[in-house]
C-alpha cells in the first residue's frame, strides 16, 4: 500500500509562506521562553516551589465552592482545576512553604465539605531551594543536549546543512513552547523532558531529507538547486510522513488513554512530532537552499 504516489510539490517555492508561519511560531515561542525565564508563565511547582495536591472526592465538587471553602479557611492563593474523570480536584499553591499548606487545605475541605469525604491521591511539596536547583539543572540539561545535537550535526554535515538542521531543531522546541504558552498549559519538568526528547527525535526526519538531498546533489551536479531540493523532498515525502505517523500513533494513544499524569506530556510530544515533520520540509531544507545559493553566487 502507498499513502502517496509520486508527488511533485514545490516545497521550496513556498518558502516565503512557510518562513512567515515559522517566524510567527518562533516569536510566540520566544515570548513563552522569556516568560518562563521570568517565572511569569504557568510554571509547575517543581520549578516555582510550592504545593500541589490531587484530591479525590466521593461526590462532585463545584470549583467555586471549593475556592470559597479554601478562602474562608485562610488559603487565599490557590489554583484549582477539575479533572473530569471521577470527582478529582487539583489544588496548586505556588511558592508556599513545605508542610503547612497541604494541612490547611485538608482541614478546610474536611470542615466545609463534611458530607463529602475525600482522599489525597497525591501531594507534592517542593521547597524554594529545590525549585532553584531544579531550574538550574534543567537549564544546564537543555543547553547541554542542544549543544550536543548541534555539535553532532556540525560534525556530520557541512556548514549549510548544519545551520538548516539547527534552525529546524530550535524551531521545533520553540513551537512546543509557543503552543503551551498560548494554551496556558503548565511548564514543568515533564514538559521540558518532552521538548528535549523531540529535539533529539525531530532530527530523524530532517536527516532523512538531508541524506537524500546530498545523494542527489552528488548525482546531479548541474541541476538547479531548487529542483534538486524539491525532487529530493518529494522522493522521501512518504517516509517522512510514515515515520512521523507511527510515533504520532504511539503518542496519541498516550494522550488519549495514558491518564492525567502524562496527559500534557503526551500533548507536548504530539505537537513536537507534527512540528518536527513540518520543519524538516519547510524550515530546514529552504534554509539550506538559500545558503547554498548564496555560496554558489559568491564562488561565481
Amino acid at each position, binding site marked *: *500500500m502507498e499513502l502517496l504516489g509520486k508527488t511533485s510539490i514545490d516545497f521550496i517555492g513556498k518558502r516565503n509562506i512557510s518562513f512567515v508561519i515559522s517566524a510567527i511560531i518562533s516569536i510566540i515561542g520566544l515570548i513563552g521562553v522569556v516568560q518562563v525565564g521570568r517565572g511569569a508563565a504557568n510554571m509547575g511547582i517543581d520549578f516555582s516551589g510550592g504545593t500541589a495536591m490531587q484530591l*479525590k472526592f466521593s461526590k462532585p465538587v463545584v470549583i467555586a465552592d471549593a475556592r470559597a471553602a479554601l478562602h474562608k479557611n485562610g488559603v487565599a492563593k490557590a489554583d484549582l482545576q477539575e479533572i473530569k474523570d471521577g470527582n478529582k480536584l487539583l489544588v496548586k499553591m505556588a511558592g508556599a512553604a*513545605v*508542610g503547612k499548606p497541604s494541612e490547611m487545605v485538608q482541614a478546610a475541605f474536611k470542615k466545609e465539605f463534611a458530607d463529602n469525604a475525600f*482522599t*489525597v*491521591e*497525591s*501531594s507534592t*511539596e*517542593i*521547597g524554594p*531551594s*529545590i525549585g532553584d536547583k*531544579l531550574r538550574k*539543572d*534543567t537549564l544546564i*540539561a537543555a543547553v*547541554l*543536549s542542544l549543544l*550536543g*545535537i548541534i555539535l*553532532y*550535526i556540525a560534525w*556530520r554535515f557541512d556548514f549549510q546543512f548544519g545551520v538548516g538542521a539547527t534552525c529546524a531543531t530550535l524551531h521545533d522546541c520553540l513551537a512546543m513552547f509557543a503552543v503551551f504558552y498560548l494554551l496556558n498549559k503548565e511548564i514543568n*519538568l*515533564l514538559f521540558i*523532558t518532552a521538548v*528535549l*526528547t523531540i*529535539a*533529539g*527525535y525531530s*532530527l*530523524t526526519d530532517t*536527516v*532523512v531529507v538531508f*541524506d537524500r538531498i546530498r545523494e542527489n546533489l552528488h548525482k546531479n551536479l548541474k541541476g538547479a538547486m531548487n529542483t534538486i531540493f524539491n525532487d529530493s523532498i518529494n522522493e*522521501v515525502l*512518504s*517516509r517522512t510522513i*510514515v*515515520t512521523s505517523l*507511527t*510515533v*504520532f*500513533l*504511539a*503518542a*496519541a*494513544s*498516550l494522550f*488519549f*488513554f*495514558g*491518564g492525567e*499524569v*502524562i496527559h500534557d*506530556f503526551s500533548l507536548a*510530544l504530539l505537537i513536537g512530532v507534527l512540528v518536527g515533520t513540518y520543519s524538516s520540509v519547510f524550515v530546514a531544507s529552504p534554509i539550506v537552499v538559500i545558503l547554498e545559493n548564496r555560496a554558489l553566487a559568491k564562488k561565481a
Partner: protein
Amino acid sequence: MPKGTGWRISLIVAFVALSFLYLTPTLASKLPAWWGNLLPKDKIHLGLDLQGGTHLVMEVDTQKAIEGSLDLVATDLEDTLNGKTLRFKRIARSGSDKVSLVFYEKGTAETVQKLIKDKYPSYEQSPTFDDGGFVAMTLRVNEKDAQDRKDKAVQQALETIRNRIDQFGVSEPTIQREGINHIVVQLPGIKDPQRAIDLIGRTARLDFKMVREDVSPTGAIPDDAELLKEKTVDPTTGAVSEIPLVVQKKSMITGDLLTDAQVRIDSQFNQPYVAIEFNSLGAKLFDQVTAANVGKRFAIVLDNNIHSAPVIRERISGGSAQISGSFTEKSASDLAIVLRAGALPAPVKIIQNVTVGPSLGQDSINKGLYAGLIGVLLVVVFMAVYYKLSGMIANLGMVLNIVYLMGSLAALGATLTLPGIAAIVLLVGMSVDSNVIIFERIREELKLGKTPQAALNSGYDKAFLTIMDSHITTLITAAVLFQFGTGPVKGFAVSLSLGVIINLFTSLIGTKVTFDLFLHKGRATKMSI
C-alpha cells in the same frame, strides 16, 4: 541457510533467552527453590509514582550542629573551671562559631589559656582583651573542623533516620545522602505518610532540666535560665493550651544517656506511657539529681518543649524512669522509637515531599499499560496494512525490542516510572521507523528493477547512516536527561536510552536476518512490501 545468518540468529535467540531469564524474578511472584545464587535476582522496580509512596528530601541544618558542639564545649569548660576553682564571670557560645569567656582577673585568664591549649588544641584562641573592665577571650572553631563536624552531622543524621525508619517498619526504604547537606528518603507503599514524616523529621532531643520556681515566667529571666512552654492538648476538645515555665538552662541529664525506651500500658488508668532505661552514667546522674531535689519539680523537655514537669517525690535509683502524659498508643510508640534511635545531631527541614497514594499509582499503571497496548496495536495494524509481510517482520522486530528492553531494565534493576512507560510506548513508534526508512528504500530499489535480494541489501546499506544519525541524536538527549533528571524523568531517560540502543540492534540485525532467511538463494522474485 544463507551464509552469515547462523551467528546472527543465535545472537537474537540468546538475547531473548537472556531477557526472559532476567525477567523471571520480575514476573514470577515467588522464585522456585532451585533458582540458586548464580541466577539473576534483580527485578524491575516500580517508581514511587506507580506503586505509591513518599519521596522526601531533607536539609540538615548543619550550622546548628556546630552551635550544639560549641554549647557542649562551653558547658564542659564551665565544669572544668569550677572543678579547678578557677573563677570566671561568664562562659557561653557567642555567634555561630565562637565561645566567649570572661574572667575577673588576668591571671586566671592566662591559666585557662594554657589549659584550653591542651584540652582543645584544634580551636583558635584570641589574645585576651579588655571587656568593660573584665578580661575576655574567645575560642573559635577552625574552618576545617567546622566542615568535618558538619559532614559528620549529616552522616549521623542519616544513620539516625535509617534507624528510625527500620524501627518504624517500612519495606525496602531508600535512604541516601545527596550533595552536601541533603538526605533523600524514599518510602514505597507507605500507608500513613504524615506520621512517618513527623517521626523522621523530629529532632527528638530529650533533656531533663530543673524547674526554677523562684523565677516568675512573666518577669526578668536570669542568664542561666530560660523560658519554655508546656503544651497540653485536651483529649476531648482537642484545644491546645500553653503553660510557660522557667527552667534551668543547663540540662541535668540528656537523651544520649538512654539505653532503651519502650511503650507500656499503665494498668491503673489504661494509659500508654514510655518507659526509659538509662545507662550506668545516666543512672548515677539520675540517682544523684533525684536525691538532691526531692520535693522540687523537674521538666522533661523534648525539642525545647516541656513534655511534662512532675514533682520529684523520692530518690529514684536503678536507672529506669517513665515519661507519661496524654499519649495515644501511636504517639507513645513513635516517641519510644525516636528515643531509642537517638536524637538527630541537628534539626532537619523537609524541603521536598512528593507523596503518591496507592490508588493513583495503580491507576497510572493500568492506564499506562492500556495506552501502551493500544499504541502497539495501532502501529502493528498500520505496518501490516502498509507494508504487508515486511511490515509483519518490522512488527516482530518491535516485539523483540520490547522484550529486550524489559530484560535489560530487569538486569539493571532499573526503576520503571510512568514517564518510563511512556518512553516505551514512544519507542514502539520509533522502533518501526528504522524499518520504514529501510522499506521505503527497498521499494525504490525494486522500482528500479532490482531483484528482491539486491534491493534488500542496498536498502539496508543506504539507510544505515540515516538510521545511525537519528538514533545518535535521540541518544544524546536521553543521556543528558539521565544525567540531570530525577525520579520520573530519570525513569524516562533510562527507558529511552536503552530502547534506542536496542532498537539499533533489532533494526539492523534482527529484521535483516529474517529477510535474509526468506529471500535466500535469490530465488524469490516478488517481495511482499
